[in-house]
């Protein structure tokens, strides 16, 4: 670290109003299973899952509905018992409003679990077995990135991980589901952490919790008191403290290389919610079929945290929470900083849904974009040390290469820059657009690559066919010549055109 950085001490991030209370202090409620659930097949990072049930089939709660497909994917299970009535497209919980494949499950009202069995002493099993069980339960990272948890557990085993960083930061304003989970089920989380330590082979776990959650810190400290290798570390409340790179640097002092993973510095990061899901999967054999969701925002009548079966529609969750007291200006899934705006309320809850926010116009504070005055507030706010104003200028001028050179690929889309921008420039939208364009270009390049191969193989095929044809013709000619030599009175060979065969 240079002298400059010592002198100027990177004062990254922002301190937004957290709006976490009173939702965080409200007692956790459990939502009854609605009559119909829409279980999305894309609830995780990576390829969509492949359905293994048929329409009309009866399933029990926790039975597998879809298998993982490809290297990065996760299994999906039935959130309740009932009948599969359809497998088709429904609107995705995504700002684009595009469709997603989903399994429609008609609940029978019994909510009967399948025969599931937990492990009594999982610590006797080899670590790989734990990862396998976690994968079978379809557990993904519950912090929002929804990366399949088992993959991270088994990858970290290879990467020689020494430290397990548990992310209880929950730096997003409004959200309190992790906070609530830590207050209510600290023992289960600590048990999950122990299981994850076993699975990864790490020797210590650092649980980072922002200091604006004193109750959660106290609960976790009490639960982990007997286990000295699980340390509860309060961290200063600052957005985006819960971002992987920032949290790892805060807790361990290691800086993750730009092209590396936490594993490169001997660390693996998991969300506390994931630890709870791991605990459920290993101890009871229960797959991930429900999750705690914060329902909050100025338009929500009774903000709080609700345990919701996956596949429930957002409008049903809002109704259960007590309804809205005014029409929201924006409906958001996730936190206000990085969450996705929902085009409508008839979209299902998925594994990555940490919150449902119905925000009023005053909270969204939407205003028309003004020109950038280069005030550089965004430069000070960026937790990655980027120059958001310059990146946005390059993207405005369609200069993607210039934007990449300015650091576009290091952007974590945390939204700090747009939050502080006095000109209300939708900086994150510029960056998301540019990243999307870049990956489209990347896909295009791959396609061109395969096109070239296809064209080459066709050229080879044509060449081979021509050669075979010529050889056949030569052979025939030789035969005829031999015939002619045997019977000199025969006529001259006729030159029939070669037949054109179907090419398929």
């Amino acid at each position: 670290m240079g002298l400059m950085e010592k002198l100027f001490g990177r004062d990254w991030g922002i301190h937004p109003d957290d709006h976490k209370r009173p939702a965080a202090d409200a007692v956790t409620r459990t939502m009854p299973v609605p009559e119909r659930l829409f279980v999305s097949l894309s609830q995780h990072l990576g390829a969509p899952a492949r359905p293994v049930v048929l329409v009309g089939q009866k399933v029990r709660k926790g039975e597998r509905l879809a298998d993982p497909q490809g290297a990065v994917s996760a299994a999906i299970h039935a959130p309740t018992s009932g009948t599969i009535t359809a497998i088709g497209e429904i609107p995705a919980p995504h700002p684009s409003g595009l469709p997603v494949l989903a399994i429609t499950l008609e609940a029978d009202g019994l909510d009967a679990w399948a025969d599931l069995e937990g492990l009594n002493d999982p610590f006797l099993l080899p670590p790989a077995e734990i990862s396998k069980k976690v994968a079978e339960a379809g557990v993904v990272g519950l912090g929002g990135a929804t990366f399949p948890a088992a993959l991270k557990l088994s990858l970290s085993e290879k990467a020689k991980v020494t430290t397990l960083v548990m992310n209880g930061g929950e730096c997003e304003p409004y959200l309190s589901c992790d906070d609530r989970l830590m207050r209510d089920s600290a023992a289960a989380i600590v048990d999950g952490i122990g299981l994850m330590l076993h699975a990864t082979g790490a020797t210590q776990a650092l649980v980072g919790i922002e200091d604006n959650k004193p109750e959660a810190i106290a609960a976790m400290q009490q639960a982990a008191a007997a286990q000295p290798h699980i340390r509860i570390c309060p961290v200063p409340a600052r957005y985006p403290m819960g971002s992987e790179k920032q949290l790892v640097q805060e807790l361990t002092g290691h800086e993750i290389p730009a092209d590396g993973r936490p594993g490169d510095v001997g660390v693996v990061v998991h969300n506390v919610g994931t630890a709870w899901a791991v605990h459920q999967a290993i101890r009871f054999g229960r797959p991930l079929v429900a999750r705690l969701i914060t329902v909050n925002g100025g338009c929500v009548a009774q903000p709080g945290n609700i345990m919701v079966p996956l596949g429930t529609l957002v409008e049903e969750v809002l109704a259960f929470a007590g309804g809205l007291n005014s029409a929201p200006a924006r409906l958001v899934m996730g936190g206000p900083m990085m969450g996705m705006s929902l085009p409508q309320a008839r979209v299902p809850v998925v594994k990555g849904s940490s919150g449902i926010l119905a925000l009023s116009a005053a909270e969204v504070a939407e205003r028309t974009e003004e020109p950038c005055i280069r005030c550089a507030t965004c430069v000070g706010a960026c937790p990655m040390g980027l120059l958001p104003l310059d990146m946005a200028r390059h993207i405005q001028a369609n200069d993607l290469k210039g934007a990449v050179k300015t650091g576009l690929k290091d952007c974590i889309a945390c939204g700090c820059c747009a939050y502080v921008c006095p000109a209300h420039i939708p900086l994150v939208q510029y960056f998301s657009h540019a990243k999307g364009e870049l990956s489209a270009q990347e896909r295009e390049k791959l396609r061109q690559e395969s096109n070239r191969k296809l064209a080459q193989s066709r050229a080879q095929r044509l060449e081979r066919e021509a050669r075979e044809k010529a050889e056949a013709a030569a052979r025939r000619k030789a035969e005829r010549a031999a015939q002619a030599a045997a019977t000199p009175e025969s006529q001259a060979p006729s030159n029939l055109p070669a037949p054109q065969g179907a090419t398929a």
Partner: protein
Amino acid sequence: MSELILLLISTALVNNVVLIKFLGLCPSMGVSKSMDSALGMGMATTFVITLAAGASWMLEHWLLVPYELGFLRILTFILVIAAVVQFTEMFVKKTSPGLYRSLGIYLPLITTNCAVLGVALLNVQQGFSFFKSLAYGFGSALGFTLVLMIFAGLRERIALARVPVAFNGTPIAFITISLLALAFMGFSGLNI
């Protein structure tokens, strides 16, 4: 020694070739679209001007004056400059094809960069000694490079600005360089 340094500063800032003497405007407008090529152009021109300043001094004092061939001054100077530029071009082409490509036609055109011939002629006119000639040439070239770099930086920024269509491209470049010349007026009469 301090005399040489003062000469350097005065030629680079106070009597800047581009902004005060209006020499070498062609490359200043042509090769100032990116800072990288501006730096390359500046270094190439610095090399040429410094070498040409030295060579012209030698020609002047060892050939033109002794044999009374003053009428051949421009011809011989251009000959030397052209040769130096040719050499530079080959060198750049060999060592940095990317730079060669981005400089394009402006690299061989250093020959006709009036700053080069201008500096050589002014040098002779002012009757400098050999080392002063070199310093004068180097200082002028430094001023040229400085302006080219500054101007390229400004143009890189303007390229991303929402300039009205009527002013986009060359007009805004001329306005910018005129404002830059305005700023350099602050150095006028600088008397250290």
